[in-house]
């Protein structure tokens, strides 16, 4: 079933895109991540322009995080105050990210920048996940009990000024690191077409010591709002959001996520994390490899419209 994508400007097989959305949705449901860091590279690998992939996946991320955020809201697993402070940074970060995106595109370095940031991010995160996964498996082999990460001492972050109380998370914490994290995630999200949950969740747990019950729901609120804003800003500035592509991805993604979440409850965590780590690492290495080989065509052409 062929369909013509209006903005990506190429015909695709609807079933292929649906299956990709479902597969990424399945993985994201299983691990409780948004999946943008897999979706965007997959779209680039099937031939969609990196800029269109990034801009379109932002709206896909908004859809999947909204359905997630709704269910966490019903379970009262969202800290509204924490979400609000994160968003103060997140919205500014998103605007900065879109501005940077437009700037890089106008100087012709956008594709390179997207590829480079994926290389850095995916190899780093994938490498860490593989390392952690291997360690966890070795520990269980030796019969040791996994160490709890939340028993550390109060770190330097807790010494910063401008503290406020986050009631639902039972924390008393400076707003500075929270705004800074929001800013960073918003920026990365808009530039790379990712929700950023896979960086945000560890940061909230290990740096800010947010209770694990609040982490995923609250991070989904940040993803939802930053991705909605990124969608609107990308559409308004570079006109690269492909709504048809996004809709197919959304349908595949939200469906896949449901089955992924169910499967995730039944499968052992360590092996799964190792597997995901290997997958992420492989995608990162693929990007790195493509940067190094000589392209068949050294020249590119872009129509910038009538002057």
């Amino acid at each position, binding site marked *: 079933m*062929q369909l013509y994508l209006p903005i990506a400007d190429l015909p695709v097989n609807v079933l292929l895109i649906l299956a990709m959305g479902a597969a990424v949705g399945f993985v994201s449901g299983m691990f409780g991540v948004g999946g943008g860091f897999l979706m965007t590279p997959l779209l680039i690998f099937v031939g969609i322009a990196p800029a269109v992939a990034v801009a379109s996946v932002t709206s896909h991320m908004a859809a999947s995080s909204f359905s997630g955020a709704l269910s966490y809201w019903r379970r009262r697993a969202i800290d509204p105050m924490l979400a609000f402070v994160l968003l103060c940074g997140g919205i500014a970060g998103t605007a900065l990210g879109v501005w940077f995106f437009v700037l890089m595109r106008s100087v012709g370095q956008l594709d390179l920048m997207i590829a480079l940031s994926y290389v850095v991010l995916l190899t780093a995160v994938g490498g860490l996940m593989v390392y952690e996964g291997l360690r966890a498996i070795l520990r269980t082999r030796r019969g040791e009990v996994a160490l709890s990460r939340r028993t550390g001492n109060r770190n330097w972050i807790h010494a910063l000024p401008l503290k406020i109380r986050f009631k639902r998370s039972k924390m008393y914490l400076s707003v500075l690191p929270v705004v800074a994290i929001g800013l960073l995630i918003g920026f990365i999200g808009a530039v790379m077409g990712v929700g950023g949950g896979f960086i945000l969740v560890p940061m909230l747990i290990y740096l800010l010591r947010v209770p694990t019950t609040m982490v995923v729901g609250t991070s989904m609120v940040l993803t939802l709002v930053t991705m909605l804003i990124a969608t609107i800003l990308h559409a308004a500035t570079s006109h690269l959001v492909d709504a048809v592509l*996004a809709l197919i991805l959304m349908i595949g993604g939200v469906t896949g996520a449901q089955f992924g979440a169910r499967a995730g409850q039944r499968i052992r965590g360590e092996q799964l994390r190792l597997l995901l780590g290997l997958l992420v690492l492989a995608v990162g290495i693929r990007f790195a490899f493509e940067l190094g080989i000589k392209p068949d065509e050294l020249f590119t052409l872009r129509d910038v419209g*009538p002057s």
Partner: protein
Amino acid sequence: MVGRAGSALAIAVAALLGLAGPAQAEKLIVSVSNARVTVTPNYAGGELVLFGSVERDNPAPVEQMAYDMVVTVIGPRSDMVTRRKERKFGIWINSDSRQFLMVPSYLAVFSNRPIEAIAAPEVRRRQQLGIKHTLLTQRIGTDYADVVANDQFRTAFVRLREERKLYEEDPAAVKFLTPTLFRTGIPLPAEVPIGSYEVHIKLFGNGEMLTQTETSFEIAKVGFEQFVATAAKQHGIVYGLLTALMALATGWMASIVFRRD
């Protein structure tokens, strides 16, 4: 500007020829098979046909002169940037670029025999016959110029357009069915740009231009996909808001359909 000056010159030359030459004046009568082509998203390419005939004031003996014809089809103009990749720090990155100013998005040059055989070099240059002689203005820093035909950015630009069948030169496309009746096909590839197209038809005899005429046609894309593409370009913010709403609606639907608690 130069194009207009060129055609003004051409008319002047034609007028001079008409005065200086024997009492014989040619007139071209042409017609395209379809003045408005609508293209749907699953359009895989097609062809227009240009028909025409050469009318003469006083019917001279047919064997007196063999006509030559050059048909140039120019699509909507646009700015285009060509970039060149270079290896830096072990990776291939865009390093140098040229901006082509208001160049044709589609350019096809058809003739009945190689243009080199039809007219002398200075006529070809003056009349912009062939892709090689078509003016492609580049901006290099603050300078505006059309550089030599073998400039690497110009060559790459033409090659990239040719690969997508958007620039084409065919020295055998124009067919004279009789000494005065001619026909040529105008192929329109799948990704033909929308907008208005000019067709310049120039008649040559003995290496000199005898007369010329112009016609035009329109390419319009229709269908849902084109509607989306146009909306995205012309109403970016509204389009973005609607896409965001669509995302919210899909997410909300999913949370209802798959609700487990």
